[in-house]
């Protein structure tokens, strides 16, 4: 038996790590990975609550989150490739104009 709080603590920690990475990282790909980390933290709390309340729909929502995250990763990485092609850099400090 594991208290539900432990799972929530782990998911909260993952989310906090994701937020911190989003703030301190300068590489656009790593920032994107931090967003995935946040989504994973949220997924863990979804599954933990699903097991706690005996409601399977929580796992369905995890499935939807994964689908949206996969779509987001595909589009986001395409945007990163387009940005790199025009700016020749991955540093977000140097990407400060919408249009060159």
């Amino acid at each position, binding site marked *: 038996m594991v208290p539900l709080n432990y799972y929530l603590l782990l998911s909260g920690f993952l989310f906090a790590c994701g937020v911190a990475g989003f703030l301190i990282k*300068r590489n656009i790909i790593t920032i994107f*990975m931090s967003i995935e980390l946040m989504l994973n933290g949220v997924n863990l709390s979804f599954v933990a609550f699903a097991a706690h309340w005996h409601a399977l729909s929580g796992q369905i929502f995890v499935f939807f989150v994964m689908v949206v995250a*996969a779509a987001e990763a595909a589009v986001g990485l395409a945007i990163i490739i387009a940005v790199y092609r025009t700016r020749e850099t991955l*540093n977000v400090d140097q990407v400060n104009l919408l249009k060159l």
Partner: protein
Amino acid sequence: MLHLSLFLIFGAICITGAINLLVQRHPINSALSLVVVMGSLAVEYLLLGAEFVAAVQVIVYAGAVMVLFVFVIMLLNAGEEEQTSGSRVAILFGIPGMIIGSVLLAWVLVARSGTGEVALGALPGSPRSIARLLFRDFLLPFEVTSVLVLIAIMGAVVLAARPEAVEHTKKEG
């Protein structure tokens, strides 16, 4: 007891991977530590009885999405990130913000300790029961998701294509 020790072991691996993601300077090291986080999260899902979600986590997240990340890192030949004055300011605010957030979350969760426990295999998340729910109650969201994925594919192709290639396709008709 077994459940708790497995949870603690893989939770520790998960936390280590998440911290390593923040500490590493090279994006490829961050990507590999994210794979570690996702793999250990799959084990946590198995401990919660969510077999289907664990399998999808390994296949979609640790497999497909991370391959995409590693592919883009290698395609763009991403090197170590350089420190700028902006990143120092971000560290100044980011680290305390993360610590405050974690402590607040932990405090709230520990203070509300009466939320109950989760037993091993408490919920049968078998593919059969998931599919029954997904294709009956959540059929409309499922179909909308397929449209979303289609749009995402088209968007990714248009965004990642070279401008010359797009012009060429337009001329072809």
